């Protein structure tokens, strides 16, 4: 059996409310919140980035896995906000975990899909019997341009998953990937904020790929929406995943545990992986879970997992996603938020 042997997440403690962003730019808060189904989002502390978030998520994943960290043979981090343009995030994380030098490391990028990309490769490495255990992390501290719709959603957080053959808590039943060249969202080298195609990000981008991957993996695995206990879709805002789920034939209660975007925001590469982590927090042995990511550019990775008995033994060893979301958040006003995110021009 190949699957996940440990999982863990990390979300920063700082938040900004959608109301405060809306007021800053003269938008009506109620209209924005209703339109995007977003209430607030996580904000990284001034000393947090994709590397520090990855470390904390990885530590939580290790707490839930009965393995020696040194047995991890591959470490992959997917992010669109790697702190360096040239110098891997993975080497720092591996050094903190104490798993160097005998480890294969790679940083991945594919907008919001980079996290599941890392999961896909980690799973493949274990399946090919190249390594005993492989760790995959999806983490981001993404930026939306001031006043842009993305500023209401772009947040910070991440999740880590260790794949292996022994002591599995969620078996991989099937995988499927779907990708085309679609210019729905991009950031050129050196540009501080990304650009996007507005309405073009919907039907020809998000929905085409999520629905394409979702329908294909259901067909490939010969499963129907009602066979699943839960489903998680990438969450660029509150509305898109609910709409995608409905169009694929899933009911609201199947989506609910992983639909954490209203209070977390869009953690990009950490979005659907953290929704999946929140779902594992409450899943029962035997449950089937569908996970479909989406990354602009564009593509989707789909996974079907089957939860095993072992999950009951390990899930309380680390903090759960809902606990991180509700643990005394520290709210920032827009000025503090702009300072934290480096949006204020300073003297050298």
């Amino acid at each position: 059996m190949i699957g996940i042997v440990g999982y863990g997440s990390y979300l920063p403690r700082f938040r900004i409310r959608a109301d405060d962003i809306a007021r800053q730019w003269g938008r009506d808060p109620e209209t924005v919140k209703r339109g995007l189904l977003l209430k607030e989002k996580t904000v990284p502390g001034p000393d947090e980035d994709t590397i520090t978030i990855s470390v904390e998520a990885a530590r939580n994943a290790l707490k839930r896995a009965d393995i020696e960290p040194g047995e991890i043979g591959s470490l992959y981090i997917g992010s669109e906000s790697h702190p360096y343009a040239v110098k891997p995030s993975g080497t720092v994380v591996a050094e903190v975990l104490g798993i160097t030098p005998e480890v294969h490391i790679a940083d991945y990028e594919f907008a919001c899909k980079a996290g599941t990309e890392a999961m896909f490769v980690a799973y493949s490495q274990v399946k090919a019997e190249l390594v005993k255990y492989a760790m995959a992390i999806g983490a981001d501290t993404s930026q939306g341009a001031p006043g842009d719709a993305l500023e209401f959603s772009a947040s910070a957080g991440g999740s880590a998953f260790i794949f292996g053959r022994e002591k599995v808590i969620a078996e991989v039943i099937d995988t499927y990937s779907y990708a085309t060249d679609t210019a729905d969202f991009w950031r050129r080298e050196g540009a501080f904020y990304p650009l996007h195609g507005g309405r073009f990000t919907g039907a020809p981008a998000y929905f085409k790929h999520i629905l394409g991957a979702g329908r294909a993996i259901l067909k490939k695995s010969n499963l129907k929406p009602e066979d699943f206990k839960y489903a998680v879709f990438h969450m660029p805002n509150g509305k898109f995943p609910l709409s995608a789920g409905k169009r694929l034939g899933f009911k609201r209660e199947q989506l609910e545990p992983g639909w954490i975007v209203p209070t977390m925001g869009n953690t990009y590469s950490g979005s659907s992986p953290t929704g999946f982590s929140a779902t594992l927090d409450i899943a029962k042995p035997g449950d089937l879970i569908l996970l479909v990511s989406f990354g602009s550019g564009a593509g989707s990775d789909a996974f079907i997992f089957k939860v095993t008995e072992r999950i009951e033994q390990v899930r309380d060893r680390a903090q759960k996603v809902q606990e991180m979301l509700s643990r005394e958040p520290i709210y920032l006003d827009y000025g503090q938020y702009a300072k934290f995110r480096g949006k204020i021009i300073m003297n050298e």
Partner: protein
Amino acid sequence: MPTPRYTREIPQRYRLEANKCKNCGRISFPPRQICPHCGGRNFERTRLSDQGKIVTFTTIRVAPTQYSSQVPYSIAIVELNEGVRITTQVVDCKPEDLGVGKPVKIVFRKMYPEGKTGIICYGYKAVLV
């Protein structure tokens, strides 16, 4: 901080690796070549716990340039479970949240970047539990 020194200090800064004296059993952190207690020169590597409590603390209101945007912030002496004391920033809280004896957890954070183009230095800080 010059890059070679940063690289050399990775074990202590990233993993809280300390030296345990094979002669008297006491732990030195940061690791030393000669035991400050008995003069011993034989050590075994040990990793310190990520749990501890605040021994004393202070609030920084006038900071060095690298930290000036973070004021006011707190620096504490934290005693880890092994009895080793470290000086560290306590983050994700207001200065008034701190107190002597309060439990903390050690986390991995950015310390500072070397200007706009240099390396980013990482290390340990504490958060309240």
